[in-house]
């Protein structure tokens, strides 16, 4: 089985979020990046399929500047077979549909039986690219997947609904699964894996090479982020000050006042 895993590199969850000069996004220089947590679960799921069927091939793909190489090397170290890195300033400023077009072009070259990716990214929180990519590829999809069982002809998946309910759906191959966090326990790259990863292929591609000139990037985007800002503060919490002992005394006082102590 051939599996395409789409990864996004996002600011580290604990990174300080300062705004850039024109207030259109965060300031990215000087902060740490990591693989989007949702995508790590997608990669793990792909690697488990390969563990069970070693004839499987896991291809990881990502879009972005030089820093993305590190994310792809990590994925190769965890066990992916090869990587595709679309590194091209012409892709900068793409909206979700532009990103989906880039990934669809990669999917055409790879020819996967299944595409695995995270339900959403930790930065833009949009959940937009997976269903768009499935539409462009002309394959069925499921989102918020918390369980994926591979059968002979396809996958039986469980989708997360509200309040802990689940929907069970059968999807034939090829298909796309956008996974929820927590569907497996993600492995770490072993030292042996990291060493082996150095010899695995990592292809760097441009938008032009993928036949996407003029179809992606800021010029083709149908929606733009005009500005980002810290949400207006409401009344918010009364923040207690003082030493730890003073703070604890005030907390105990409040719990007593609530009649709970």
């Amino acid at each position, binding site marked *: 089985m051939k599996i395409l895993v789409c990864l996004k590199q996002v600011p580290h*969850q604990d990174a300080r*979020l300062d705004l850039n000069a024109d207030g259109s996004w*965060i300031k990215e220089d000087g902060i740490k990046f990591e693989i989007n947590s949702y995508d790590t679960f997608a990669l793990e799921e792909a690697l488990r399929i390969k563990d069970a069927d070693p004839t499987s091939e896991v291809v990881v793909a990502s879009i972005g500047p030089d820093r993305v190489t590190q994310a792809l090397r990590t994925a190769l170290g965890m066990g992916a077979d090869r990587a595709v890195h679309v590194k091209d300033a012409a892709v900068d400023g793409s*909206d979700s*549909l532009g990103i989906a077009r880039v990934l669809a072009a990669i999917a055409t070259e790879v020819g996967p039986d299944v595409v695995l990716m995270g339900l959403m990214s930790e*930065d*833009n*929180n*949009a*959940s*937009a*690219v*997976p*269903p*768009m990519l499935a*539409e*462009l590829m002309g*394959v*069925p*999809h*499921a*989102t*918020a997947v918390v369980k994926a069982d591979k059968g002979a002809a396809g996958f039986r998946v469980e*989708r*997360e*609904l*509200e*309040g*802990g*309910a*689940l*929907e*069970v*759906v*059968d*999807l034939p191959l090829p298909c796309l699964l956008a996974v929820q*966090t*927590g569907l497996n326990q993600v492995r770490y790259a072993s030292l042996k894996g990291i060493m082996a990863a150095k010899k695995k292929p990592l292809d760097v591609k441009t938008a032009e090479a993928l036949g996407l000139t003029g179809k992606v990037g800021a010029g083709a985007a*149908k*929606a733009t*982020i*005009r500005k*980002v*800002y*810290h*949400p207006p*503060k409401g009344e*918010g919490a*009364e*923040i207690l000050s003082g030493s*730890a002992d003073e*703070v*604890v*005394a005030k*907390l*105990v006082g*409040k*719990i007593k006042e*609530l009649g*709970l102590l």
Partner: protein
Amino acid sequence: MASILLVAELQKGAIREASYELVAFAKKLGGDLHSVVLGSGIAGEAEALAKRGGGKVYVCDDAALANYNVDGWAKAVRAAADASGAETVLFSNTPVGWDVAARVAAGLDAAFVSDAFDVRPGPVFVRRIFNGKLDAEVAPVAGKVVVTVQPGALAAFEGTGSGSTERLSVDLSGLRAKFVETKVASSKGVDLTKAEIIVSGGRGVGAPEKFPEVIQPLASALGGAMGASRPVVDAGWLPHEYQVGSSGQVVTPKLYIACGISGAIQHLVGMKGSNYIIAINKDADAPIFEVAQLGVVGDLFEIVPKLTAAVKTAKG
């Protein structure tokens, strides 16, 4: 006047309230309103929507739509978008909306805005990003736009309307996704909904052994229950029954103490109805402080054990 199509949803045999929130959103946006209802045996529900502000309601009534099906929904919504000439298509950001809306947007070659909680003149849509830490204003450049709207962001439309219904026939052959069943949440183990006091830990607790060492003792000292946020459960530190949030338990205790929880939207939805909220977090900018009444910006490993000891002393 620009045409708007609203994709209504059914829940327990009726149009769900989130769909009437879409009516309110559409009225704020301004335009000629159309709706589409999908399901099997849904004429009555479609009538109800038409009478409560849904405008012209397209009815896709087909046995193949008895349960949600991504291919069926995509086809039927596309057909309704064509029939209504919609410039704007609105979904609720629910398990249906987040599954199919972006797919419809790609098919229509439209702009897509996810989980908007407000719209300003332009239109400019406002949404929350970075797990609640920032807001973004998103403007469609031109042409069609598909938007999912955050449930609960606007009050549901409560007025009446003189809408109409029209049957919409769609070829639903060749659907590839097949619905198997819906599994309801299992209610084994911890029922946090009945707890008067909940002490919850998040990613900031740092390691699984810290829950029995640090969080549980405070919960026990107060005679309450221990809870957790999603990352804790995802990491396998605690089982799912401890999870508070939109995909876990929705709780309303008299006192909720959040320790090392930053306050992602999905967690806030599950606990913001608590009578009193105390938050302890090292990050002063954490969104949890927006819903808490009392906050401590500091190290939970210093504060929580001292608080546990003080509670025990106070109880004698």
